[in-house]
């Protein structure tokens, strides 16, 4: 390893990224706007989880506790046939006619079934079997829960495309062929690309985190250093995964397809937007095979539960093993042309 050659590639790659204003702006603005959007969307009375169409005069709604239930959006409707077609198409979960004391649901809609049970249960006069207990402590907002996922997802796109796509572009436009004709070795070139992307990713993640925290104020029960370790280890594993795609691909279109093939299932399986509790156990096991899951679970554990490095050592170990495996495969497969 010749550190002078490594440094030359590293510096020029940094210059290329930092001077590309549009890419830099996008890397910073995208996650900030996403988090801000979630904060705004979920800052009111909360997300209406169910949509119920109500036929007729709103005065007839009075007197039923069902109409005071939170998280149900009651939508006045006048045309029964149109409303029924919306129930059929899952645009409404239930249609209710308070005057006629009737309701309609789609038998294929799980939400309709739940609403039906609520409608019958809320108005029941029997003594409750269960007594209500309250969870103590500060509640976790949805934006608090989703933020580590958004940061990790942004990191994933930056790492995969920032390394995978860029190297393929270099190969396609002849840059790699030119570098091959110099004493620069593949190890020096790849190490410079990985290191450059790593620090740029971590720097943008810190800026995004600090920037959004100013106006959203995330809970942080653990250590910032531990969170940094998680993101750094995660970024290395994602960059290494990008190297595999970049190793031999010569077409930018194919590279984009492969990177999307990796990133979108990973986004779904890692639980960025919703918990995978209750999904098929096979999918839950698959989720353990992708780095994003470990990054998000470890970051959430640190931020929300105050977990230390010992508590998340399983996630860190998984990320390190993946990094080594991906890096070895990427280096082994790599060709200049």
């Amino acid at each position, binding site marked *: 390893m010749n550190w002078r050659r490594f440094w030359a590639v590293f510096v*020029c790659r940094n210059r*290329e990224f930092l*001077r*590309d204003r549009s890419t830099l702006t996008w890397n910073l603005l995208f996650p900030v706007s996403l988090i801000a959007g979630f904060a705004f969307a979920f800052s009111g009375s909360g997300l209406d989880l169910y949509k119920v169409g109500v036929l007729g005069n709103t005065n007839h709604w009075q007197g039923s506790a069902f109409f005071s239930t939170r998280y149900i959006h009651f939508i006045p409707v006048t045309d029964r046939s149109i409303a029924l077609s919306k129930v059929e198409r899952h645009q409404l979960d239930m249609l209710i006619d308070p005057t006629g004391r009737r309701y309609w649901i789609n038998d294929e809609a799980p939400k309709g079934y739940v609403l039906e049970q609520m409608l019958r249960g809320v108005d029941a006069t029997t003594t409750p079997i269960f007594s209500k207990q309250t969870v103590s402590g500060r509640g976790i907002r949805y934006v608090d829960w989703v933020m580590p996922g958004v940061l990790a997802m942004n990191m994933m796109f930056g790492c995969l495309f920032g390394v995978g796509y860029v190297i393929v572009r*270099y190969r396609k436009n002849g840059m790699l*062929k030119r570098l091959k*004709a*110099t*004493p620069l070795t593949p190890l020096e070139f790849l190490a410079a690309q990985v290191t450059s992307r790593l620090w740029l990713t971590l720097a943008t993640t810190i800026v995004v985190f600090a920037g959004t925290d100013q106006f959203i104020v995330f809970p942080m029960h653990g250590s910032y250093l531990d969170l940094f370790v998680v993101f750094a280890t995660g970024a290395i594993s994602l960059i290494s995964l990008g190297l595999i795609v970049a190793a031999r691909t010569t077409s930018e279109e194919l590279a984009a397809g492969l990177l999307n093939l990796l990133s979108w299932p990973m986004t779904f399986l890692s639980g960025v937007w919703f918990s995978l509790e209750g999904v098929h156990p096979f999918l839950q096991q698959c989720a353990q095979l992708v780095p994003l899951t470990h990054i998000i679970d470890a970051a959430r554990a640190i931020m929300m539960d105050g977990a230390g490095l010992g508590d998340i050592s399983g996630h860190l170990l998984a990320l390190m093993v993946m990094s080594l495996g991906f890096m070895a495969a990427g280096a082994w497969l790599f060709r200049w042309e």
Partner: protein
Amino acid sequence: MTALLETCRLVKHFHGVQAVDGIDLAIPPGCCFGLLGPNGAGKTTTVEMLEGIQKPTSGTVRYRGEPLGPRFRQDIGIMFQSTALQDHVTGRENLWMFGNFYPRALPVAELVETCALGEFLDRDTRKLSGGQRQRLLLAIALVNDPELLFLDEPTTGLDPQARRNFWELIHRIKARGKTVLLTTHYMEEAYHLCDEIAIMDHGRIIAQGTPRALLAAHFDDVVLQLPLADFPNPIPLSSHTVIQGRDTVEILTRDVNTAIEELLARNISLARLQIRPRTLEDLFLELTGRELRS
């Protein structure tokens, strides 16, 4: 004289196609060697094997009598026909990066002077004209003060001024005793720059020598050229070859006086007659044919 770079029975197969078929070359130090050939002749594959970019299927390439190794990488400079440079990086920064790849690099000021980069050295490489870009790529190829310089169609796409300017740069490099291997489609360029040329076709070298020696060996005639409009009925002239082009008629003759007498006898105006010696382009077409290659 010991060859700086030599090949022995160099062969390259690609999926059943024999791109290069047993090439033997010996390039002496300080020589400007031109490799010419029509599209698909195998010259790019040959040059890439000489550069160490591609591995031969069989045969050897030796630099200073040794197989290509780390020293070869440090001693050569390459200017590919089309090389992308990093976006958002200036010419000076590119020179800095490539200079750091080598144990010894020429001072930037020297490269700037040699390749006339002064006016655009600190400009983003995306904003360079074709000629400026080629000069920068030449400077990058020279950054390690190479003993052997590969120039792959360096003036393709340049306007005549930029091309002449580039020739001047190559003359300066030659004057410093550097060895140059040049591929080009411009025969005039090869004639002006090269001390020795090899013409390739179908993966083999079909002619090799100095341009003058090759012309002398293949031709003992001159070309009389007339506009086609002045030559309405191209009747074959006795003992002369007549080639009718789209706009001109060329008469190949060893005896100019007789040919002119025959033209006058047929009342053909000689007002626009041009007489020229045979050129490398004539030789190239004679050896490789006139049909269009893909």
